[in-house]
């Protein structure tokens, strides 16, 4: 079925890849690769862009999610909460080939959300009196000491969704949601790899998780990861 592309957002994968460039900041959605776009990650490896700053909840699992791009030495800095599920990132970090900035997972989520919703930062007491507070401004509100955590934005975000309509209204699938709705908001260009693309009106407005205003490009990649449990 031909889907009317009223907003011009539905593009081919190679058209979408024109936005991915050397030295940019890239948000890779997903949790351990669940909710990541396999096709777009593979295309980024093929294009072999370099010196990326990647923001992702974790480094992925071996060969799944961000791990593949990191293995291919395309990343100079990673902002994340966890790298323990794959050996590559820790190894590159220890060799001085990759800079890693750790943020507690809830804090990382809110920093991305802050970047996406136009806020200048967040205040959280998670990380107070730990290594996380180093170099951060402390602000006291109502007798509690908080850390000022700065917002995160990216040039491009890539994410998976179960369904997108031609405007970019998105529906996710179970635990393949993670940072996806937050990253869609926090990038100059958000690229959605939708399993299914449907006409405008085919998604009940009550079911929309990410409003199409936050989505710039919709592709259908169709790629599938090979999971550790398979």
């Amino acid at each position, binding site marked *: 079925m031909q889907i009317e592309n009223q907003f011009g957002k539905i593009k081919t994968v190679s058209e979408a890849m024109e936005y991915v460039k050397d030295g940019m900041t890239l948000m890779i959605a997903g*949790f351990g690769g669940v909710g990541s776009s396999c096709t777009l990650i593979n295309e980024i490896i093929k294009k072999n862009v370099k010196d990326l700053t990647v923001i992702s909840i974790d480094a992925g699992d071996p060969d799944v999610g961000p791990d593949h791009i990191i293995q291919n030495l395309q990343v100079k800095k990673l902002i994340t*909460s*966890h790298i323990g599920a794959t050996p590559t990132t820790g190894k590159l970090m220890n060799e001085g080939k990759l800079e890693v900035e750790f943020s507690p997972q809830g804090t990382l*989520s809110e920093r991305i959300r802050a970047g996406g919703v136009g806020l200048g930062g967040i205040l959280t*007491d998670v990380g107070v009196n*730990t290594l*996380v507070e180093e170099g951060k401004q402390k602000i006291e509100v109502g007798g509690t000491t908080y850390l000022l955590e700065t917002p995160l934005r990216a040039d491009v975000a890539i994410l998976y969704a179960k369904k997108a309509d031609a405007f970019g209204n998105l529906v996710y699938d179970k635990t393949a949601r*993670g940072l996806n709705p937050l990253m869609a908001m926090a990038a100059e260009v958000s690229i959605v790899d939708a399993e299914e693309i449907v006409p405008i009106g085919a998604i009940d407005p009550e079911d929309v998780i990410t409003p199409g205003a936050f989505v710039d490009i919709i592709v259908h990649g169709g790629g599938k990861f090979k999971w550790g449990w398979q």
Partner: protein
Amino acid sequence: MGMAVKEKMAKRAAEEINNGDIVNLGFGIPQKAIQYIPEGKTVFFHAENGVLGAGQSPEKGKEDENLVDAGCVPITAVPGASYFDSANSFAIVRSGKLDITIMGGLEVSEKGDLANWIVPGAIVPGMGGAMDLAKKTKKVIIIMTHTDKKGNPKIKKECSLPLTAPNCVSLIITDLAVISVEKKGLVLKEIFDTTTVEEVKEKTAADLIIEEPVKVISYE
């Protein structure tokens, strides 16, 4: 043959869970606690990747690649479950809606400080959700071996490793004992039937308050 020690720790931890609790389980032994929830108790398991109401593993062949726990292992969802993004997942944590977190530990201090996210220069996995969970859950239960592989105590006056969160642990369950962290200090509540109070004291590098009689746990 008796129950394996890991199972005993998980079973003892599960006894802390009350009907209606919202609970987050860390990787490894804590996850085994799910098997020891008595029938008739309704518990909602929170997995920080975005589900409240995580259920048992699916049958082989019935896995759904988009329904996994925070260790990316396929799960099922129980009736009444919900899915959400990472911000809402940690909103549940930070707002204090989580009753219990059960996680592993590298060190716990006598004030209940927890270290479990980094061994500088050796193991640097990152904190994941551990800092949020440790700091904000109502009751933090740590399951760990009483000593490290070299026999050094992991319960100490002060943690030597970088902290996950200060003053956050409520209860420590080790392969030897159950110790509660209270205002007055560390209280030895129970020991497993494989040890003695003397051995526990010897392997703990902090003062233990002992209120006789110390209960002895025997699992068949």
